[in-house]
């Protein structure tokens, strides 16, 4: 009986491998994780959508596009590079941090450029023609949003530091360029605790090279934490047209931190 099952299993496996040779590998059922959106079908040569004013249409539900565990590794840098350009104070802070102190795990906003890999997010260009705002609505970790001003305003001179900072965007041909200052120093770039200061200045370049992909190159300039600016690169994937953002409320019965036996340190200093 056991042998019979084994035989049947081998046959099934053989059948699968034959099928795999004749077709593309199967798409993952969900982007990002079990609760993520289904991936949109990639149609080769499909035109990148545009808004009525001619700018690229980024609207939709996306997954990924930012660092989670390790900004250097996920952003395409050589191992050890970020440590090599950290200022002494940043290096000392970095050495003290452990994942259990990550403010993100205590439901605080992720900041920029971090994005939750295991949650979807929706990009909203508003209004649809000549947008004055772009909103990024996050399913989780904190069910919150980021706003980017597209109306040509400048940064305020001395903004109050916030988790998402003051973001202004403009188009350079088909690339959306978002310039952000006014960050607080409370969020971490990644679970490793890669640090920054309130001097942080990010320039994001968002492009849609194919229908289902959003590329994001982020220049990170923070003389308080790094001796020179650096670029990190990420890709977000489009959810199928019927994708919706679900409601995830991190602070409702969060089992990280104290219940998980971790040291509670929301500021991580």
């Amino acid at each position, binding site marked *: 009986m056991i042998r019979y099952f084994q035989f049947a299993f081998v046959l099934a496996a053989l059948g699968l491998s034959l099928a795999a040779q004749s077709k593309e590998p199967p798409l993952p059922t969900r982007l990002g994780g079990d609760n993520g959106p289904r991936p949109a079908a990639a149609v080769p040569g499909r035109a990148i959508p545009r808004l009525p004013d001619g700018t690229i249409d980024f609207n939709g539900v996306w997954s990924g596009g930012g660092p989670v565990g390790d900004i250097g590794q996920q952003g395409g840098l050589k191992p050890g590079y970020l440590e090599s350009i950290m200022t002494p104070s940043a290096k000392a802070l970095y050495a003290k941090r452990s994942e259990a102190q990550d403010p993100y795990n205590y439901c605080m906003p992720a900041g920029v450029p971090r994005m939750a890999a295991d949650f979807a997010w929706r990009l909203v260009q508003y209004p649809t023609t000549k947008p004055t705002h772009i909103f990024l609505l996050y399913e989780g970790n904190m*069910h919150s*949003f980021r706003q980017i*001003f597209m109306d040509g305003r400048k940064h305020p001179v001395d903004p109050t530091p916030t988790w998402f900072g003051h973001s202004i965007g403009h188009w350079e041909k088909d690339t959306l360029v978002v310039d952000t200052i006014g960050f607080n120093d409370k969020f971490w770039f990644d679970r490793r605790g890669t640090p920054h200061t309130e001097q942080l200045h990010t320039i994001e370049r968002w492009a849609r090279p194919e229908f289902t992909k959003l590329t994001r190159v982020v220049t990170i300039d923070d003389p308080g934490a790094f001796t020179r600016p650096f670029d990190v690169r990420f890709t977000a994937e489009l959810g199928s047209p019927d994708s919706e953002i679900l409601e995830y409320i991190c602070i*409702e019965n969060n089992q990280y931190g104290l219940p998980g036996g971790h040291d509670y340190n929301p500021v991580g200093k």
Partner: protein
Amino acid sequence: MKRIICVSLTIVALSMALVQAQELGRRLGGSNGPTPTTAEANRPAPKLADGTIDLSGVWTGGGGEEIGRLLKPGELDTILLPHTKKLMQSRNDGMDPYNYCLPGGPLRITGGFGWRLVQHPTVNAKYIFMLQEGNAHTYRQIFMDGRKHPVDPSPTWYGHSIGHWEGPTLVVDTIGLNDKFWLDGSGIQHTEQLHLVERWTRTDYTTMKREVTIEDPGAFTRPFTVTYTARLGTPESEIFEYICIENNQYGLAQGLQPPVKGEK
């Protein structure tokens, strides 16, 4: 937190009154609220290219008041089922999940802070988003694409909301709500049977009327309707970033017992 804000607001308001009477009321909702639009009050409500009313903008109010104060004197008593009344009497401000940074539910998302209404796409909108500056700095979504409610939705803080237009009125039907948030600061209890029908009408350029029919056979003797009013901020108004859970001084810090799990 609320009490501290109230006190400091009162102090600010008093000193402002002493210094410059005409400065009073220059912000909606509080000292950090948007500036009210007044000059354009007589203009009709704007319309989008598809003919629907344009409700977008930064608004204040429209859902934060205590429900008892919006009803006739004594009316609330006739609406609450005995166990609802008992639970409400046992609750106090210090137990309100809202004060511990949890979402306020569909009614209170409009209370206390500026909020932005977004019709998306702008023409033939499939969504309406309500972005709240505080308390939880979160958002609510309303599906405008004609879909139905799911049969047995997982209960959530904002529920499953579907909207359609009846003339100039946006009608939003919501089910699938959890029983964890309070309908208002007075602690009116509800159950997962809660069903809300909101009717949003922009009665003039600067004013939005919101009639909400509240139905919950698990908590109330009958459906009842309350009317809220939201006011428009000036065109340059923006919502700020308020993160309640960052250093919240309500609750334990004030010697209050956190009730986040609620009391059943």
